[in-house]
């Protein structure tokens, strides 16, 4: 039991920590777009990376936060039948819907891992210091590497799966004992 508790704590803490990191990413993205706007409209010297960097930062931000949002139960539900049930009934409903939930997240994890891996190992890489480096790059002028962004997709799916497992354990405990796990 102790190991399970440690696992649950670890997952919760990790997702909260990711949230804290993403606070930094948000501010960074805001700074980048500000810099770009100032350079473009005040100095007339737009960068070739501002917009893309901001977009990619936000891309990381959305997918990485999947588990964080699930920790806070922020993923929006339809509260027609669900919300008016007792806590225990809701836990039972959650146990039932955990089947499609894990189906979705596991398939997402598997497919996006493949998606990332084919990008990581792509031949058409760039030259860094005269050495050919594999990995997919964006087709823009700036041409940043795409695979770190794509890596965030299986990572986000994994964090969602782990957070889902924590909720599953809480639900099982509630259904079995009628008490909430503190």
């Amino acid at each position, binding site marked *: 039991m102790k190991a399970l508790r440690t696992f649950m704590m670890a997952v919760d803490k990790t997702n909260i920590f990711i*949230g804290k990191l*993403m*606070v930094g990413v*948000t*501010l960074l*993205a*805001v700074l980048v*777009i*500000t810099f*770009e*706007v100032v350079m*473009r*409209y005040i100095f007339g010297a737009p960068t070739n990376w501002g*917009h893309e960097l*901001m*977009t*990619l930062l*936000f*891309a990381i*931000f*959305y*997918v990485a*936060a*999947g588990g*964080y*949002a699930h920790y*806070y139960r*922020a*993923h*929006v*539900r*339809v*509260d*027609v*039948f*669900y*919300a008016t049930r007792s806590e225990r009934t*809701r836990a039972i*409903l*959650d146990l*039932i*819907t955990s089947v*499609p*939930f894990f*189906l*979705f*997240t596991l*398939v*997402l994890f598997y*497919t*996006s891992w*493949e*998606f*990332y891996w084919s990008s990581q190992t792509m031949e058409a890489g760039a030259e860094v210091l005269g050495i050919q480096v594999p990995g997919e790059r964006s087709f823009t002028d700036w041409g940043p590497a795409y695979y770190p*962004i*794509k890596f965030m*997709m299986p990572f986000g799916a994994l964090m969602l799966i782990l957070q889902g497992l924590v909720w599953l354990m809480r639900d099982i405990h509630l259904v079995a004992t009628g008490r909430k796990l503190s």
Partner: protein
Amino acid sequence: MSIETITITMFGSMMLLLMLGLPVAFSCGTVGMVFTALIQGPMAVSIVPTRIFGLMTNYLLAAIPLFIFMACILERGGLIAEIYEMVYQWFGGLKGGVATASVMACTMMAAMVGVIGASEVTMGVIALPEMLKRRYDKFISTGSILAGGTLGILIPPSVMLIVYGMVDNSSIGQLYAGAFLPGFLLAGLYIAYISFRCYLNPIMGPPIPKEERLPLITRIKLLFPLIPAGILVFLVLGTIWLGIAAPTEAAGVGAVGAMIITFAQGKLKWKGIVEACENTLKSSAMVLWTMFGANIFVAFYIMVGGGAFVTQLLVGSGLDRWVILWIMQLILIFLGAFIDWVGIIMLCVPLFGPIIRKLGFDPIWFGVLFAVNLQMSFLTPPFGYALFYLKGVAPKEISTTDIWKGAAAFLGLQFVGLVLCMIFPEIILVVPRLLFRG
């Protein structure tokens, strides 16, 4: 499987999962994946990450977290409260004045924020207790805040119209221009209704007593702190309409501008910024994951011929095009009671958009009509964001039923607004024509 069977089983199983309480993102996503695997084979599922990657790296969608961030900062910085205080002093002397002031303050805020949460929560905390203290009618009090706060997502900058424009491939600048007058029309309807009720029966909303009103000079002084906010509105909306900046850039300017204004007035602490970021993260992750899931669902459905099927069903029925338009509006009102706006846009726009063009309606007009219609979705129980937000902050003596009843009259007004925009398309189209086609 025939398209009829696919339609019924897909929508049926999605509805079942939604009812059981699985979040919209995962319900749509699972059903979309399972059907893709069943009908096109397991290998076909590998298209899913490509679609998600397309959405998450979409440049236009980056405006969503930026606008949400801007609203969170303005909320933390107390700007909403300041605007309310100013309008309250100017118009509180009217019958029903506090409720009118609430709607006006919400309308002004709506021109700065693109979501509903910030105004709804702030007004629920300051204006609602004020109205109850002055013995305002409970339903007028709750209804004015519910309906007023909802304007945030209609009056530009609006996050809803960004998602709509992205899905429908129509110009966000034009949609913003189109949503302007309908937003003010709705605000006008709310104020007219409040005043009408309170002039007939002043007990429902007594004016502020004379001795509590501030002298003119003090009231004029209240306007000064709001000048920077006015400049911010111009920077955000003006640059989009003059075609200077893309919506995402304008959103970035708005986010930084909001930080500078609140920071300069000494109202923004580091803790406030972090909290604003965290709220932005939760809301944006929710919106984007719902988009991911719904996209998996609808992209598959259209690929197997669902779009053509729905078009055939509606256009091929031989019904008058206005009847078809009404059917769509009723579908939206119905869905709005159960599903959140992101899901509705993702599921309905890819199906309705082509039909609207086929019937010869103006796509910009329909887009704004869509947004006006979805105003109701925030107020229709059982699932209405505005209802949840207000219930979350309302004093204990206000029950959920009070909030639902308060929403009822204003829902009626929103419906009147929708009908007016349908009968007189100029309400929507005059501004875009002036700005873009003149």
